[in-house]
């Protein structure tokens, strides 16, 4: 059986409508857009389904994320999720950030995400974990 919530069936609740407004706001006005020169924690990911693209730059001091910037292009969910995640991880310990999981991203977005769009939603997490591993990476270079 397909889980109804999983395929995004049913009307959005009032609370979910507010979340959607938030997602649109982050998409139209993304936070922490930019780059860090000579970055030690830089990572780029692509989502071939949509052509979504994200590149994340982190500065880590004493095992804490102290600076976060990103750039990207693509659908509202992928871009808004990255923007929201940059706000969430600023000041976060590296270990805690490594422990973030899919469920945390879905909770952060607050709307039902269909199985197909899940890749868009989770691209930010893949980019974050890639950059935390250190060094300068381009998964598709």
């Amino acid at each position, binding site marked *: 059986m397909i889980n109804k919530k999983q395929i*995004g*069936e*049913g*009307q*959005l609740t009032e609370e979910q409508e507010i979340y959607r407004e938030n997602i*649109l706001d982050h998409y*139209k006005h993304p936070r922490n857009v930019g780059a860090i020169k000579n970055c030690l924690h830089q990572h780029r990911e692509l989502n071939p*389904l*949509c*052509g*979504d693209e994200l590149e994340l730059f982190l500065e880590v001091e004493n095992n804490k994320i102290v600076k976060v910037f990103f750039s990207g*292009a*693509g*659908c*509202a*969910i992928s871009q808004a999720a990255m923007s929201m995640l940059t706000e969430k991880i600023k000041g976060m310990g590296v270990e805690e950030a490594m422990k973030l999981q899919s469920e945390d991203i879905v909770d952060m977005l607050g709307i039902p995400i*269909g199985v197909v*769009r899940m890749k*868009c939603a989770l691209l930010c997490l893949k980019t974050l974990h890639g950059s935390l591993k250190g060094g300068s990476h381009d998964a598709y270079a």
Partner: protein
Amino acid sequence: MNKIATLSDYERAGKEFPELRRLIHGHRLIYLDNASTTQKPQSVIDAMTTYYEHSNANIHRGVYQLSEEATTAYEGVRQKVADFIHANSSEIIFTKGTTESLNLLAYSLGKSLQKGDEVVLTHMEHHSSLVPWQQIAHEKGALVRFIPLRDDGRLDMTVAKRLITANTKFVIVTHVSNVLGTINPIKALSVLAHAVGAKIIIDGAQAVAHFQVDMKELDCDFYAFSAHKMYGPTGVGVLYGKKELLETLPPFLYGGSMIREVTLDKTTWNDVPWKFEAGTPNIAGVIGLGAAVEYLQNKEWSMIQHQEQELTAYALEQLRALKPVKIYGPLTTEERGGVISFTLQGVHSHDIATLFDQRGIAVRGGHHCAMPLMKLLKTAGTTRLSFGIYNTKEDVDAVVDAIRYVIEVFHQ
């Protein structure tokens, strides 16, 4: 003459297509992704169920009644498909879809390619016709050339004439573009290919459900299509090939059924078309395809074509009136099928599709398995409407309302 289809026609269609009776997010389903796959009429579903409930047995092997029934039904569909496209039944091969049909040709025909030979495709090909030939050409050291598009989304036939030369061995062209809706001039391309001794292969996936396709008239050498885009089941396709060519073509898959005699060190092949049908085929699927062919044969081609053309004209007119919408492909309905691609400045195609879905509208967003075409059109992806036999004016109106809503949400 027919008028444009309206809601009452949709309700009538809903009696034939059970899925059209479904509600999506509380709205009636407005299904506009027919280029991807069509809905299935009850007659197709029933034909497959009846086979599984009453006549299930393997074909060509058993000498008992059930196997004979299954064999008769299966081979009967081969004749139906042959009549449907004006061919001979020995020229009809069942595959699992257009993709397998096209791969079969690239593997079998491609064996004869030599260094310096040329293969001509178009810039609007689906990955399933482009990738197999690109790969086999790389392997053989052959060159791949692409017929370019004009600004109106049609093939540049002047360049095509220059590209198809004595070096050309194969020409591979889609009959109808799955992105732009363009209907390509197959007869003219067959003449060009045959004049230089090349063989021409047509990807007919987007054509067969929408107008009469006639092998005698097109004079192409090979033609591929899928059941599921013509109201039939998934997992079944057809490869048509001229008999004399199929006879000399080496088999693609080896196994049961496709052999005549096997010894420990050599094998001879079965007659065509069975030489190309190794293993137990999708019998229920083929029977479903037969019901789909019957479904279409019970309609008038002129009615189907007229109805889809009226809808396309209406949709093009309505979409063109919306300022932020950019339409790709021909803007007139002449030599054009019911596939319309568009973009909306600043909104990703998947976001459009998700918001449409909230209103029960199913459309496709993305690159439509045609990345080189997307690159040419300078977009990451488009939103695509594609019409089927059950679509109506109200469906187009719902799309226009939904686009206005997307613009409001994203551009406010």
